[in-house]
């Protein structure tokens, strides 16, 4: 080893040893801190802690917060809390839990289901917590238990605030409901935040804004004696009540929409175009959310589940339907903006369309055809052939990209959980979902909103709002404001503007006004008596295909196979304040069934009166 190498080695060792020495000093300081803390607790604090430990025990009792109230835009209560008497047990204070449960069961006539539920809750909670055995006690049960209370230590009747939905079915799909905390919920929850809370938002607004609505659990440190009886409160941290939420929803519009749908199932979504605030959110049929709060009996739930009308199914959010002709205004814009379409160029419509070298006829809804139509009249009269040709000349990928700007095939981001994105196909999309390539015929039928195209009513409403805004993208939202210590409403999210020439908007919107207000418009039946202009578009979506050369006769088709009726609209057309999308399942023609529903909602909103 050279002298230099030895020096270096010595230097390395010296540095290392200095570092070790430094570490040892830190280590000893840490140990000193530890010992100091132990001395503080075990010598200085010994008496205090010994008293807490030996003669008394400290127990922690959770103080659950009250859940925030949900209001509609006019202050109508959509979700409320009402006091309810519940029989509760603190397992830790009961000597023989099995015997007690058996006695209570006979005394109060409880079902085996009640006992089973309690057992489950018991396994999920700490033994010092008060666990409900039976909620919503009847007067007679309260009286019977009151007499025997002294024989049941650790069992008591408590008042709990229980969720109730005054409008029941009317708001079930929008507001959602709370239900008992499940095993799966527990995995997601911070247990200490939910001590003493037995309900959690399961769907709708109740789920989206769970944290806001729930508030923060408080607690009491109770000094208790050996029998577990509380002999004093050492410390109280009060709960923070959940925030009250005001929704943009208008309950009278909900009612108007439901009434308007009449015998039909379907969905109605109405929005304020400028803000994206949702005014009506209806999925019909609906269900009563109230039984879910207490725990719906299995038979009732099965009935809801297996009903052919599927009342639990949120059509507005998760129903994916062919949009039919309602896509035509958007496609018109596509033609003008990204294609070489001239608005006044006439296209002849003989009543059918054929691809070159193919005998297959793509029919127009009007058998004899519309003759020569330009873009405006094609929208107004809903000419199919015009849009077959338009789609084909644009090509599926251009069309798909443009429609995507209006949110077709994408989730809107509405503040209700579980939304589906729908589909707006492209060549790439088909590659992923099928072994076949994209066929030109598929482009043709995409032009009239059939084929692979699927939209949700909320998506259609949003696209309509973007149209009404002349390109400003908004995100539908039900929450208007949150009030309370638990927190404020999240910021509003507004997207960017679509860059489309103003005259193109004029053309398409004028055509949509003509849909309602001109003699040849497909929705002219709703124009009578309107004090403002409505811009709309009808749609009739095929549920099954009619064979070549056959005629679709409504009377011959069973109800389940009848076409869906659609209508999109905004009003007043010049200064839109409301945008609506209506879907009536198997309603037949959009103009005759869906359009009046939209009119009812718009009249209610703009003129404040029933139609």
């Amino acid at each position: 080893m050279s002298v230099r190498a030895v020096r270096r080695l010595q230097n390395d060792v010296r540095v290392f040893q200095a570092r070790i020495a430094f570490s040892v000093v830190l280590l000893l300081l840490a140990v000193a801190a530890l010992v100091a803390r132990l001395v503080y607790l075990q010598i200085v604090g010994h008496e205090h802690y010994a008293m807490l430990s030996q003669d008394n025990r400290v127990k922690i009792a959770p103080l659950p917060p009250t859940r925030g109230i949900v209001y509609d835009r006019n202050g109508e209560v959509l979700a409320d809390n009402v006091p309810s008497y519940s029989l509760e047990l603190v397992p830790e204070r009961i000597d023989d839990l099995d015997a007690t449960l058996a006695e209570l069961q006979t005394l109060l006539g409880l079902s085996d289901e009640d006992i089973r539920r309690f057992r489950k809750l018991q396994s999920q909670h700490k033994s010092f917590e008060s666990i409900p055995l039976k909620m919503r006690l009847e007067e007679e049960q309260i009286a019977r238990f009151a007499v025997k209370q002294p024989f049941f230590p650790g069992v008591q009747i408590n008042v709990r605030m229980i969720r109730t939905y005054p409008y029941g079915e009317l708001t079930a799909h929008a507001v959602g409901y709370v239900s008992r905390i499940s095993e799966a919920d527990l995995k997601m929850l911070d247990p200490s935040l939910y001590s003493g809370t037995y309900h959690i938002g399961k769907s709708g607004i109740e789920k989206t804004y769970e944290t806001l609505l729930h508030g923060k659990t408080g607690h009491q440190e109770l000094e208790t004696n050996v029998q577990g009886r509380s002999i004093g409160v050492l410390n109280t941290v009060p709960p923070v009540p959940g925030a009250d939420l005001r929704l943009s929803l208008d309950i009278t519009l909900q009612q108007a929409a439901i009434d308007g749908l009449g015998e039909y199932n379907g969905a109605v979504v109405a929005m304020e175009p400028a803000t994206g605030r949702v005014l009506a959110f209806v999925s019909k049929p609906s269900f009563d959310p109230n039984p879910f709060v207490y725990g719906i009996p299995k038979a009732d739930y099965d009935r809801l589940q297996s009903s052919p009308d599927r009342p639990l199914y949120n059509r507005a959010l998760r129903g994916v339907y062919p949009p039919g002709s309602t896509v035509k205004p958007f496609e018109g814009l596509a033609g003008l903006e990204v294609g070489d379409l001239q608005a006044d160029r006439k296209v002849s419509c003989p009543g059918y369309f054929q691809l070159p070298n193919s005998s297959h006829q793509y029919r127009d809804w009007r058998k004899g055809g519309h003759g020569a139509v330009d873009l405006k009249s094609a929208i107004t009269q809903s000419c199919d052939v015009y849009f077959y040709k338009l789609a084909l000349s644009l090509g599926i990928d251009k069309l798909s990209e443009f429609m995507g700007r209006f949110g077709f095939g994408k989730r809107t981001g509405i503040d209700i959980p579980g939304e589906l994105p729908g589909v707006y196909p492209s060549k790439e999309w088909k590659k992923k979902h099928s072994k076949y390539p994209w066929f030109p015929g598929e482009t043709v039928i995409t032009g009239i909103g059939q084929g692979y195209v699927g939209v949700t009513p909320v998506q259609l409403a949003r696209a309509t709002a973007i149209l009404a805004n002349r390109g400003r993208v908004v995100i539908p939202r039900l929450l208007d404001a949150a009030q309370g210590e638990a927190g404020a409403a999240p910021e509003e999210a507004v997207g960017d503007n679509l860059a489309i020439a103003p005259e193109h908007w004029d053309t398409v919107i004028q055509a949509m006004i003509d849909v309602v207000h001109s003699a040849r418009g497909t929705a002219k039946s709703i124009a009578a008596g309107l004090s403002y202009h409505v811009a709309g578009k009808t749609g009739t979506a095929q549920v099954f295909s009619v064979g070549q050369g056959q005629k679709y006769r409504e009377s011959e088709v069973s109800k389940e196979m009848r076409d869906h009726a659609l209508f999109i609209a905004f009003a007043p057309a010049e200064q839109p304040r409301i945008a609506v999308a209506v879907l009536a399942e198997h309603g037949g023609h959009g103009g005759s069934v869906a359009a009046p529903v939209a009119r009812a909602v718009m009249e209610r909103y703009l003129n404040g009166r029933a139609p």
Partner: protein
Amino acid sequence: MRYDYGLAGLGAEQTRFERIMKRIHIDIPLFAGLITLSGVALVILYSASAQSFDVLLRQGLRLLLAMSVMLAIAQIHPRHFRFYSPMLYGVGVLLLAAVLVMGEIGKGAQRWLDLGVLRFQPSEILKLAVPMTVAWYLSECPVPPAFRHIAVAGVFIAIPVGLIAKQPDLGTAILVGAAGAVVVFLAGIRWLYLLLLGGVGAGLLPVVWHFLHDYQRDRVLMFLSPEADALGRGYHIIQSKIAIGSGGFYGKGWLQGSQAQLEFLPEKSTDFIFAVVAEEFGLIGCLGLLAIYLFIIGRCIHISIQAQDAYTRLLSGALTLTFFVYVFVNTGMVVGILPVVGVPLPLVSYGGTSMVTLLAGFGILMSIQTHRKLLPG
């Protein structure tokens, strides 16, 4: 300077015993310390587990297995550790990545890798592989290491730490990161760099905060005011404080701790077992237990000071200091001077996940001690 094998003062001649010890590569003082600690641990665990022989038996078997691993590792020459350091590191990182991918698929349970019969946490490997690899790299660098060397070492540390934090297992990520950082510190990083790194680290805290999960933030906040979470982690601290404080100077006696025996103390056989010691054996017992730990750590420091080359110096020093960090983080948490993070008390808490890794580390230390070439005194 004369070296011994743990049996001091037997003179120049190697006894028969010494010759055997030399061949089986066991460091007697370290081994004795670990055996004592394990024995004491079983006594404590018996009380903490509500006198369960079953728990005792299982822990005993684990100890036996881990001790065998330790002794086996002690037989390996340190040059092999050095040679295999980067490979062990590579395998560990790959397994971590695999866990993340499989975890994605399985939605949850991201920390574990299921090998059919055996389930284990790859992050355990990194507890050893990170200090080994950083020591392997920095031992080749001049002292003090240049900035670029530190940057490279930083990357070696950051990759597994990032992967573990993503699992998410913040506690282990911090411990693995600390193990690597200790090597950098021992390798003689300039104080100026250290200050700079400290400054940058402090500056990054708000960013880290941003990426934490809500519950992780809650935990940190909770430490700042434990009363705010009296129903969750705060409950442990309150009950733990009562248990420790009521233990007093002499303790309530073995199996006599009312807090521990009456189930008031949660997790008393795992993370909070030190509170049982404090309640039943008092301040005396706590100091005794700390003394055993300090004896073990002292012996390990002795080994690292005597280590003959840069690699073994850095590695042994890092393993030693990391061990102390484990002990301090756990006891500090139980007595309430550190935030509650899920770190067990080494070799005492019930559970075997980390025991094998810990004792494997001691195996490395023993190997470093017993494979030294004897330099002429």
